[in-house]
């Protein structure tokens, strides 16, 4: 059984669920470990400058009517650009302290990037479209194999906390995640346009230009995320708070749905967990509901998530946007860290967009990075002893963002 791919994502509102099986079918790297040291290809690609694409171009590639030329332009760009960016990711990993690089989780992701680079690199040499289809398949493969990079890295860095100072780690992760968003955007846009071209769908009705939805209705996305997180919460705690959505609910704007989903899921996870745990801690019989409010401003849309989860005290507040900082008590602190397989299996069951309800400490920094990617913002206000208000502001992806470079 394979999970629903990202392409059918918007038609089937089911978040991809992972099976334990997926990760372990990849063949281990068969070359000797020292191979990377002598690999000139990486260095050659790293030396090339990054050619950023503006958001406008990305959208324009897929502007209706989607022509063969437009699609070709997009694919061409992806062929030449992606290997460069992947090579840089590999290089970044190579810059980590040696001991960190030997951590199995981190090594796994490093290998993944290396393999992806090698698999895509061969397509950057020719410029005709004969192997576009093959290239498309490779892209899909890239996207699906890298889906759970973040939780894996999170786990890895958690284990490496003592070997790296937090500033270096934060710099690495910021860089990595920012680049990852860009790589995926380009790849997914390309895949999506290929698919649209093949299916020759009428873009006007759909509102989609590749993975960008020009008629995204946040209320729908919120409801969907709420359902998902609520279920997760019930599963973990046996109960879940109610959620109410109010404000300018008929708002629509242009955005990348997956991004919004990701951010909302992380924020809702925090709210749900905090609400249930605080209600229990204070002996409150009823669970206060979570209030979500939508607004449509001149320049951006706003989503406010208001909970009564007890808030965050000042000390924690200072670290709340740091990687690997979590207020969740680690339940298996005394577990054997070398018990890699058990942990990986556990993670595999729970990771992905619908990851563990909390605990890896990556939720907020990640959500913020996604929010900021297109010029938005994420602000947390804490009334310690009462609850938190989280303000998510997202800009409409439109003409004014034409200069934004991916």
């Amino acid at each position: 059984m394979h999970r629903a791919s990202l392409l059918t994502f918007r038609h089937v509102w089911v978040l991809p669920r992972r099976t334990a099986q997926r990760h372990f079918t990849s063949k281990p790297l068969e070359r000797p470990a020292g191979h990377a040291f002598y690999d000139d290809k990486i260095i050659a690609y790293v030396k090339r400058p990054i050619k950023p694409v503006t958001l406008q171009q990305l959208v324009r590639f897929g502007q209706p009517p989607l022509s063969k030329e437009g699609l070709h332009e997009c694919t061409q760009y992806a062929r030449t650009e992606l290997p460069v960016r992947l090579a840089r990711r590999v290089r970044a990993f190579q810059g980590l302290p040696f001991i960190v690089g030997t951590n199995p989780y981190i090594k796994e992701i490093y290998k993944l990037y290396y393999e992806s680079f090698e698999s895509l690199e061969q397509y950057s040499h020719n410029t005709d479209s004969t192997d576009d289809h093959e290239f498309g398949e490779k892209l899909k493969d890239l996207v699906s194999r890298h889906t759970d990079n973040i939780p894996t890295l999170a786990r890895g860095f958690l284990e490496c906390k003592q070997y790296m100072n937090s500033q270096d780690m934060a710099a690495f992760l910021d860089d990595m995640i920012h680049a990852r968003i860009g790589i995926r955007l380009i790849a997914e846009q390309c895949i999506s346009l290929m698919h649209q071209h093949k299916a020759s769908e009428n873009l006007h009705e759909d509102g989609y230009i590749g993975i960008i939805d020009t008629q995204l209705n946040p209320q729908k996305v919120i409801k969907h995320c709420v359902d998902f997180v609520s279920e997760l919460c019930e599963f973990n705690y046996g109960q879940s708070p109610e959620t109410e959505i109010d404000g300018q609910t008929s708002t629509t704007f242009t955005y990348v749905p997956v991004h919004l989903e990701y951010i909302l899921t992380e924020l809702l996870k925090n709210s749900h967990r905090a609400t249930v745990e605080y209600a229990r801690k204070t002996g409150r019989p009823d669970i206060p509901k979570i209030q979500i409010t939508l607004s449509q401003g001149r320049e951006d849309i706003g989503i406010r998530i208001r909970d009564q989860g007890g808030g965050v005290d000042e000390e924690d507040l200072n670290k709340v946007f740091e990687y690997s900082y979590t207020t969740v008590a680690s339940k298996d602190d005394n577990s054997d860290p070398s018990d890699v397989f058990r942990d990986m299996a556990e993670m595999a069951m729970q990771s992905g967009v619908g990851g563990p309800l909390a605990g890896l400490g990556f939720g907020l920094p990640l959500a913020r990075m996604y929010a900021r990617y297109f010029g938005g913002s994420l602000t947390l206000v804490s009334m310690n002893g009462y609850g938190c208000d989280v303000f998510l502001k997202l800009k409409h992806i439109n003409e004014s963002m034409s200069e934004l470079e991916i």
Partner: protein
Amino acid sequence: MNRALRLKTTLPARPKFCRFLSLTPWSLKSYHFYQNKVLEPYVNQPISASTLRQYIFFGRQMNNKRLAKSANWVRNELLVRLAHRIRDFQQLPFFVGTNPHIKYIYGLYWAAFEKLRKSPQIKTMEDNQGFCTLLRQLLEEGRRVIPQMALGVSECASYYADDQQDLDRFVNRMFRSRISRRVLTEQHLALTEACENDWDESMGFGDGYIGIIFTRCSARAIVGKARKLLDIQAATKFYSHYHGKLPPPSEWKPPAVEIELQPAAGSSGNSNEIIFAYIPEQLEQILYEILSNSVRFTMANHPPHAYPPVRVTVSVNETDVFFRVSDQGGGIPKTRFDRLWSYQARAPDGEFLHFEDVQKMPSNISERLEQNTTDGPMHLGMGLPLSRVYAEYWGGELQIMTMDGYGTDAYVRIPRLGIMAENIGFDKFTPHQLHQHRYTRPQDTQSNPHATKYHPDIPLAAGDGWMKSSIVRT
């Protein structure tokens, strides 16, 4: 004449305030530079910032015998604070200092300083009477400062570069210092009155009040008071402004202000009350200002029969009391929101020009309501920043978050233990911020005696002049 246009002319017409100028412009005379030495003995004393608890403790022990001693302490402390303030003025760029409004305030401060300096030491109750009369005079005169400050900032803002927030920081220091002197003054006057009346309950100095501090402020009562006053404003001034003629129909009601209290988890006692020690007038001003904005904008953006309520949530933990005011008044557009807390950024748009018609700033809500006639301007423009200065005075804060198109949330955090020292108005610089070319570090002057010495209290820190938040992270 279009007010915005007026600001762009290089020389304003003879300012209206000149008619009320009762001070000799002796500050312009050259001997003033040498007179400056009278400041020295006071400028060299550090400011003592107290905590609310210390004020309460000190005030509880007040009696006629101790009053004289306390009066002398107040006299000296006022002189010290004024001296530091004057010195801060003297560090302003010369160009700014020549602005007539700034010069006027500078003159006011010197006059106050001189009057106090020349006043005698207090030894008897009669002396204290005289001292109190002087204090009342100074309080009254001091009400001229803010309107002048607003106009001065309006005219000087363009002198500074966009990223240079010196003037903002200066104004905040000035406001903080001003509040600190008023607190000292009003407290002494209140304690004097209490002593004269033998702490008579009927005078309002019964259980709970220590001068202007009330040890049993009730969150609900304070919000309730602000709301009642606001209802009157809404029915008169706001209604006429937004819906035309007065009076409103009998079935009309102003926007509802709903209060929800959330006492600390597991706290015993009445769950309907949150009690703490504070200066109620300060909190009333803050909440009145915020609620006023909420009600005003709710009325502006909704039909009179369908006002969405303004929701106030009060919560408390071990150290703080929180007031959250959420409205659906349409929110604040980004351009305005980004400049909400900067006097410099707002001045060029003519935001403070209404102060031309205001000679004296109201010092409490009742005075404010009196002055705020139905025909007058809707707002003067300083309410929010002033409220924030008040909130930060005892270590609290005021933050505003907005959702453009929907509404605004205001968060007020008030420390409830009374253990935070007064925020007097002198930012502390950090060593790695001492890089501005105008100033040198103290150790540098030892090696280079010709290097400019700096006043230790003049802040060199970067920043927008507001305290770091302990409730907002972005």
